[in-house]
């Protein structure tokens, strides 16, 4: 299977390890990724919040770069996913306004968890797991942009999503039932109003702990960075590490959680490292 791939700017910087885990996982799954040639930033929240034309034309350029490819587009970042889908919808609803010349390209823009939670992919993952995360209680955290607005994202269960839970269960971990799975962490405000981010992240982490989680799992690079970093600000003692679903899949498949990967977390990922204790020691030796 071949897919076009849009990594997005976070996956070149703060979430570089997310990009690596997605690429590695696709090798395991026999999925070939072709990066969108010369892709540009989707504009994220800042563009659509301040300038509608820029907010659509930035992501639209990326779609036009792969207009003839015929492959669906895989997107790991929730924000990029939402912006590319918004541009896709505009392109289809109003091609004249957006200067679309010729036929409208045929492809679907797919967020990573939607892709990984497909029954045939889950089956492959289940088959490949060598060391399950047996019983690890994790809080699956979706945040906003892979789900909302469903007119844009096409998410079928935007209030009660199940993709991350399905993926985590395939690894043997135990998703907890909790209240804040789709609450906003205010990632787009985190630099300008860190006080608001601290409040929202504090509430989210507290809810996850209340439900008995020892770690959080997400598929959004903004959520991952924001929820780990703002917990540190709050100065609590039992902060929850936030993992990308893909890094846990790789760990369960390869039966180890390498030192290199442990180091990228701002909050100690010990809870997962301990699961792979024996192999982790070999790795560092």
């Amino acid at each position, binding site marked *: 299977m071949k897919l076009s791939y849009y990594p997005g*700017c*976070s996956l*070149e*910087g*703060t*979430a*570089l390890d997310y990009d690596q885990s997605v690429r590695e996982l696709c090798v395991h799954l026999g999925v070939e990724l072709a990066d969108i040639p*010369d*892709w*540009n*930033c989707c*504009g*994220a*929240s*800042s*563009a*659509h*919040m*301040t*300038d*509608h*034309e*820029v*907010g659509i*034309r*930035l992501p639209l*350029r990326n779609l036009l770069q792969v207009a003839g490819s015929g492959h669906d587009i895989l997107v790991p970042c929730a924000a990029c996913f939402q912006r590319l889908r918004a541009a896709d919808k505009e392109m289809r609803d109003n091609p004249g*306004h*957006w*200067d679309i010349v010729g036929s409208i390209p045929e492809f679907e823009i797919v967020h990573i968890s939607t892709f990984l939670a497909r029954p045939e992919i889950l089956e492959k993952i289940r088959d490949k797991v060598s060391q399950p995360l047996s019983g690890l209680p994790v809080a699956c955290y979706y945040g*906003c*942009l892979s789900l*909302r*607005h*469903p007119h844009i994202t096409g998410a079928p269960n*935007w*209030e009660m999503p199940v993709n991350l839970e399905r993926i985590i269960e395939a690894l043997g971990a135990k998703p907890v039932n909790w209240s804040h799975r789709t*609450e*906003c962490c*205010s*990632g*787009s*405000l985190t*630099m*300008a*109003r*860190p006080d*608001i981010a601290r409040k*929202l992240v504090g509430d989210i982490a507290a809810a996850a702990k209340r439900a008995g989680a020892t770690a959080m799992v997400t598929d959004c690079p903004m959520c991952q*960075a924001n929820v780990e*970093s703002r917990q*540190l*600000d709050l100065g609590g003692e039992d902060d929850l590490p936030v993992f990308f679903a893909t890094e846990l899949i790789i760990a369960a498949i390869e039966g180890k959680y390498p030192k290199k990967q442990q*180091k*990228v977390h*701002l909050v100690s990922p010990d809870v997962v490292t301990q699961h792979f204790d024996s192999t982790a020691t070999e790795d560092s030796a």
Partner: protein
Amino acid sequence: MNNTSISPEDRNKKFLNKLKERDIDVQACYQCGRCSAGCPIGEFFDLNVMEVVRLATYGMEEPLLNCHTIWLCAACETCATRCPNDIEIAGLMDVLREIALRKGVTPAEPRVPLFHKAFLGSISHWGRAYEIGMIAGYKINSRDLLGDMKLGLNMFLKGKLKLTPHSIKGKSDIKQIFSGKGKEYDR
């Protein structure tokens, strides 16, 4: 909101037309309040979400362009997904921010648009976001030099900040977009 006199004479037709163009049907609001109830940032707002929608239905642009709410809204879309009348409330916030910037209204939360400006500046320059450059630009413009120093250093030491920007080839496309492509025939 208590001191706001709502006057139908103040209706701003151009503003209402703009909302219509963008399919944001504020007139459909019957004030059920679900938007305000579910807003994760509502407690920090001066106007709650439903008040924003209500003022918009009256075309009362001025209190909206001057409020804190439009800048503190994180565009999480919770309000819009829960609106029983399918009003694109997050889109309304986008329109309000855009008009405020175009009109040069002094923003009630100056740091938020400064952040957007720094972020977009980085994209218009390189075609992709360059985090270190963007953060530096924001810090200088907002004069918030000391905030998050520890976090920034931590991220840097973890190798999470890319040292050199990536410049895309199609920078002329990006330049066109930022110099108003699509707005040529606005008037």
